[in-house]
């Protein structure tokens, strides 16, 4: 009986080991997709029709940060960056999001290839001066972490069409706005590479790992083409 039992345990143990291994390998080579709707554009090359696939790209924007400096896609040239949407008087998920974003900030404090942009969805209230005060109280600085304001419609459209997250006014919502708690990871080509729950520590851990992974892809020798 005892021997049977031991064999049984050994088998269970063995199976569980076997089970783990492939999963982990898969994880390592996991795809790092470009998110968003793709566009297919036909064009003619040497009389033949070819179809180009165009990946979703963050559209152009021009917003002003806490130091009264214009922030545009050019501000993130040669950087990967993380974007989110919030407002300073938000009583619900924003404080948690800011606490989590602070972890991202501190993780890449000395890495110039990473930046952060937080868009206010309440530009009427969140003036440049208020955003400056907010940033100082969090003890963070631009250009590493930009708190931006601007035209309300532009910000909402950028959120919905560009970063593919919800950001709009809703008087029924606590605080008066409805917005997603997402952190969006954008690569150097302005493609969205990941969307993470900014209120969930585990998901933000995953974001930090993915930023490392994304940065590593840029340092890779160009053997693949």
């Amino acid at each position, binding site marked *: 009986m005892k021997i049977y039992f031991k064999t049984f345990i050994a088998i269970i143990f063995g199976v569980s080991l076997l089970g783990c291994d492939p999963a982990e390998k898969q994880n390592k080579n996991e795809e790092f997709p470009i998110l968003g709707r793709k566009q297919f554009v036909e064009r003619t090359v040497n009389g033949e029709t070819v179809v180009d696939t165009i990946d979703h790209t963050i559209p152009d924007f021009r917003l002003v940060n806490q130091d009264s400096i214009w922030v545009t896609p050019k501000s993130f040239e040669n950087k990967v960056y993380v974007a989110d949407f919030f407002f300073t008087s938000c009583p619900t998920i924003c*404080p*948690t999001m800011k606490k989590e974003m602070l972890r991202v900030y501190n993780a890449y404090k000395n890495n110039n290839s990473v930046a952060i942009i937080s868009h206010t969805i309440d530009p009427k209230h969140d003036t440049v001066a208020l955003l400056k005060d907010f940033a100082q109280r969090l*003890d963070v600085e631009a250009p590493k972490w930009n708190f931006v304001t601007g035209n309300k419609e532009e910000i909402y459209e950028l959120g919905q069409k560009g970063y593919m997250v919800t950001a709009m006014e809703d008087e029924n919502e606590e605080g008066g706005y409805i917005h997603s708690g997402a952190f969006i990871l954008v690569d150097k080509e302005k493609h969205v590479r990941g969307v993470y729950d900014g209120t969930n520590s585990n998901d933000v851990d995953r974001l930090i790992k993915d930023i490392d992974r994304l940065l590593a892809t840029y340092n890779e020798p160009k053997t693949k083409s």
Partner: protein
Amino acid sequence: MSLKQSLSYITFLSLIFSTGCGSYSEFSSEATKDYSRAEMQKFAKYMVAGKQLYTTHCSNCHQESGQGLGKLYPPLAKSDFMMQNVNRTACLIKNGIKGEIIVNNITYNQEMPALEELTNLEVAEIATYIYNSWGNERGFVTVKEVETSLSNCQ
């Protein structure tokens, strides 16, 4: 059963008994040392309910650790502002606050929303929890105290 096995059983069982089973050691402090068993039981109930309410309504800003966040949201842990005045705290929980306050020599200026839907009991549970966590040791904040405080809010 070998001696080694019996020993490990005994250790296991004693571990189970020592971690709970009727004692409220996890809630006891200098402030609660003279509480009767019945009082202690009630206190523990407030602490447990208070923690749940705190997690729902307060911890987004003040954090689970009661440490607040930077200079945006003030700490409750070892907060001089809070420890000075329980009446004011009860009013703040219920009615919120706007404008500057100074906590441990730092000026904070972030609006705190009102929680008008809270009952006096719930305010008392939250108050009991925050006044007896993270190194704060004040003891019970009773419903009666809260009632009096709330009828005298400024």
